[in-house]
């Protein structure tokens, strides 16, 4: 199959691009730039990409790609390079991926308006677009060679960064040689993409480009930034949201040489020559906070609010059939709850900032939102966007934490008081206690079954805080709806004739909310798949068979669920208190069927033995990366299901570090088998869906092993101890 589509052009002049790339400071070799004449090209009808912004070819043939998305472990540097290199027809070994500078105009995903790496959108957004960019570049190389040799472009072919003229003895010109001529050509208005059979990199598990430097210590993350005169600051923000400094006693800190106290209304920082000095200075401070009203909030109160919220009618996100009528007979009610969660990426939050005397500001750090980072700094300083330069680095984990810019704002505020550049580092305790937390949710659900054990009616009311409201500064939601909060619930894969999904916005006090890997579907899939298991039991059906019976409209999910059952040995006998649990989901454009096997000790300790996941992510770019993302996502989700719980006492987050915000370790990790099935459907997202697939299959396995249904995460193991011990 070949895809033909119009290639885009962008109304940006070459000069503009040069400015942008200089600002990036990435040392680009601009031997060739496509689209030098693009300013005269017809205005694009809709969103288009400027190939110029993505590809640079040096005279020696080395190719750099400006990667719009952030590399945070999901392999996007490699997969986006695969898309470009395949169509450009260059050797991937000659490609250097570089972080693109901040620019919504140049680098926003065709699926979004902002430059942002989140929501499992990179491949979905850029799959076709970057192939077109690559194909445009290749066409221009061919055109340049045709001009130079005075032959028809149609008679030429390309291979590994060279244009070859078979009709003339196979003479060759390298892209590096052609670059200056190609740079003067207009970009083609239409390109033909490679046929599937000709693809060299796309769909292949090629080696990742970012990993060699990650095994020898050379990879640079934001926290690794070094420069002359760099100071280091340790920060402590009010432990209660909205709190202010009441008093700072710095008498002991003052006795330590080389330290500077920065006290700003709601945050304190100690600046020193290195982290250790600053940390000791911070430890020597006695800070008294005035927490205000929020200092009265405890977790219990938030759970009570959520319960109340779930008893109120919510905004209707979806309604089909006659729900009231269908629920009249033999109705089953249940509630499933999810706690607040911190992200805890391995690289604690940090930003390096130099607020300069000339009114400009330079930033170094890792962010999932490059342009929003610039805006946050510009807002904090009250200076125009152009005065802010941002150097983006590898992320030591994102998971949604670095979609927020609170760490940029705080760092800039500290840096304003510091002479010269300062690296502001969050301790792990500060990182966990000053997060933008995944909201807690309560899902109030009801369902009824037909006589033959099919679901007839279904209501799903989700009560919880809105991340969308949080990031828009608490603006009222349009029609009371938050599309993210109900994602996964409105697109439930099961065929149910009478169905209603509601969102009951219930904002928690004293906690800031943010995106967390797996976002809305984490909650919805957990609730749906728990409910499906409960209903299967009520109907007296096998959990897999019960789901299959409702997947008439979802052949892709049905197929992989059958495959998962087969590969996991579903139905084969297991020892006592050992069982399998299932989760079937459609989220982020991908399908995953997961079967998890656990055993539960007499004391209620859960051992996760084995996980089998079958993935249909549509067309793939790098199947091994898909498998890796699902493996990792499963463990990320299961860690939360087993341990993740952010609680509040007197308005303060009680968890501090990995001793009390616990992580699954290698000796708890199960064997995981991920199978990626071939598909010619549109590519799906894969960074997040593994995350939502883990917890439901885990609690359903626990249910099968013990008969105990878990209604709130994390799993309270004391509920699982066998009766003779309890």
């Amino acid at each position: 199959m070949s895809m033909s589509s119009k290639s885009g052009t962008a109304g940006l002049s070459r000069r503009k691009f040069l400015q942008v790339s200089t600002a990036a400071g990435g040392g680009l070799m601009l031997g060739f730039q496509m689209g030098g004449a693009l300013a005269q090209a017809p205005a694009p009808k809709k969103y288009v990409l400027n190939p110029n912004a993505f590809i640079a070819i040096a005279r020696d043939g080395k190719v750099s790609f400006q990667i719009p998305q952030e590399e945070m472990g999901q392999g996007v540097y490699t997969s986006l390079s695969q898309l470009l290199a395949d169509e450009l027809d260059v050797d991937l070994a000659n490609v250097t991926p570089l972080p693109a500078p901040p620019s919504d105009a140049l680098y926003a995903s065709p699926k979004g308006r902002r430059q942002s790496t989140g929501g499992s959108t990179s491949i979905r957004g850029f799959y076709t677009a970057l192939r077109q960019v690559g194909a445009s570049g290749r066409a221009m190389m061919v055109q340049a060679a045709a001009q130079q040799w005075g032959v028809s472009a149609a008679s030429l072919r390309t291979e590994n960064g060279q244009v070859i003229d078979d009709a003339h003895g196979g003479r060759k010109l390298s892209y590096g040689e052609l670059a200056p001529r190609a740079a003067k050509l207009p970009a083609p208005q239409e390109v033909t993409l490679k046929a599937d059979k000709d693809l060299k990199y796309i769909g292949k598990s090629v080696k990742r480009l970012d990993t060699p430097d990650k095994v020898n210590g050379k990879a640079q993350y934001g926290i690794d930034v070094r420069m002359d005169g760099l100071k280091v600051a340790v920060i402590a923000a009010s432990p209660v949201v909205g709190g202010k400094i009441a008093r700072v006693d710095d008498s002991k800190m003052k006795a330590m040489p080389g330290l500077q106290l920065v006290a700003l209304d709601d945050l304190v920082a100690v600046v020193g020559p290195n982290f250790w000095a600053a940390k000791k200075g911070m430890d020597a401070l006695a800070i008294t906070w005035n927490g205000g009203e929020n200092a009265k909030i405890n977790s219990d109160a938030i759970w009570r609010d959520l319960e109340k919220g779930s008893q109120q009618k919510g905004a209707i996100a979806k309604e089909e059939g006659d729900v009231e009528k269908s629920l009249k007979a033999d109705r089953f009610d249940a509630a499933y709850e999810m706690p607040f969660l911190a992200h805890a990426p391995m690289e604690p939050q940090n930003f390096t900032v130099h607020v300069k005397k000339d009114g400009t500001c330079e930033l170094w750090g890792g962010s999932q939102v490059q342009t929003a980072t610039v805006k946050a700094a510009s807002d904090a300083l009250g200076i125009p966007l152009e005065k802010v330069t941002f150097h983006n680095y590898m992320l030591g984990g994102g998971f949604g934490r670095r979609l927020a810019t609170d760490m940029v704002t705080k760092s800039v505020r500290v840096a304003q008081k510091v002479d010269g550049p300062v690296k502001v580092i969050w301790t792990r305790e500060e990182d966990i206690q000053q997060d933008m937390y995944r909201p807690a949710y309560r899902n109030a659900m009801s369902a009824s079954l037909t006589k033959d054990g099919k679901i007839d009616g279904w209501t799903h009311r989700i009560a919880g805080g809105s991340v969308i409201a949080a990031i828009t500064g608490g603006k009222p939601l349009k029609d009371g709806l938050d599309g993210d909060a109900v994602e996964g619930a409105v697109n439930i894969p099961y065929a149910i004739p009478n169905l209603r999904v509601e969102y009951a916005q219930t904002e928690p006090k004293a906690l800031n909310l943010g995106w967390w890997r797996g976002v809305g579907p984490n909650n919805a899939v957990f609730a749906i798949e728990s409910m499906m298991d409960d209903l299967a039991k009520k109907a007296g059906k096998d959990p897999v068979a019960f789901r299959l019976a409702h997947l008439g409209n979802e052949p892709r999910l049905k197929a992989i669920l059958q495959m998962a059952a087969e590969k996991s040995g579903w139905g084969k006998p297991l020892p006592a208190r050992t069982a399998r649990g299932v989760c079937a989901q459609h989220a982020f454009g991908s399908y995953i069927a997961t079967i998890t096997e656990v055993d539960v000790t007499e004391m209620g300790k859960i051992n996760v033995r084995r996980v089998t996941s079958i993935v249909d992510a549509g067309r793939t770019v790098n199947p091994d990366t898909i498998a890796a993302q699902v493996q990792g996502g499963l463990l990320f989700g299961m860690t939360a299901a087993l341990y993740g719980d952010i609680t509040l006492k007197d308005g303060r987050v009680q968890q501090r570090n990995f001793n009390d915000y616990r992580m699954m370790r290698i000796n708890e990790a199960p064997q995981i088998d991920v199978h990626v099935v071939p598909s010619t459907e549109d590519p799906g997202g894969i960074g997040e869906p593994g995350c939502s697939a883990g917890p439901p299959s885990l609690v359903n396995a626990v249910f099968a092993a013990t008969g105990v249904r878990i209604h709130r995460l994390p799993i309270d193991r004391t509920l699982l101890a066998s009766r003779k011990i309890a």
Partner: protein
Amino acid sequence: MVTLQINGQAHTIDAPDDMPLLWALRDIVGLTGTKFGCGIAQCGACTVHVDGKAVRSCMLPVGAIGNRAITTIEAVGDTPNGAKIQKAWLDIEVVQCGYCQSGQIMSATALLNRTPNPDDSDIDAAMAGNICRCGTYVRIRQAIKNAAKSA
């Protein structure tokens, strides 16, 4: 002033005795491959070798090291087992974000130094102190076994 033997070179640095080695490496010597993760020896991101043994540098004061040989991620590839582990890591694409991997590799190399053919129990004992938030554990286990088998 403290003198440390780092990657075969003596470094005399101006640091108080109680400064953890991690910050001496990162902020003074300029070796940033060793990572800060938790500061309380719960995550392993800061693992280095002291006389060939895996040690959490975030809790090890420089004043307590003396003349013992420190090896960091930047130089572990010069050792036979370090090179084997690094290669095994790349061969099966263990790494995701990579932030914890310096520590993982240091722990895994120390394991091979002591136990040339580790089984699952050895791997659990040596690696359970290293947290990976991306969830690369399954591949870490496989890569260690592959490295042990490689020549």
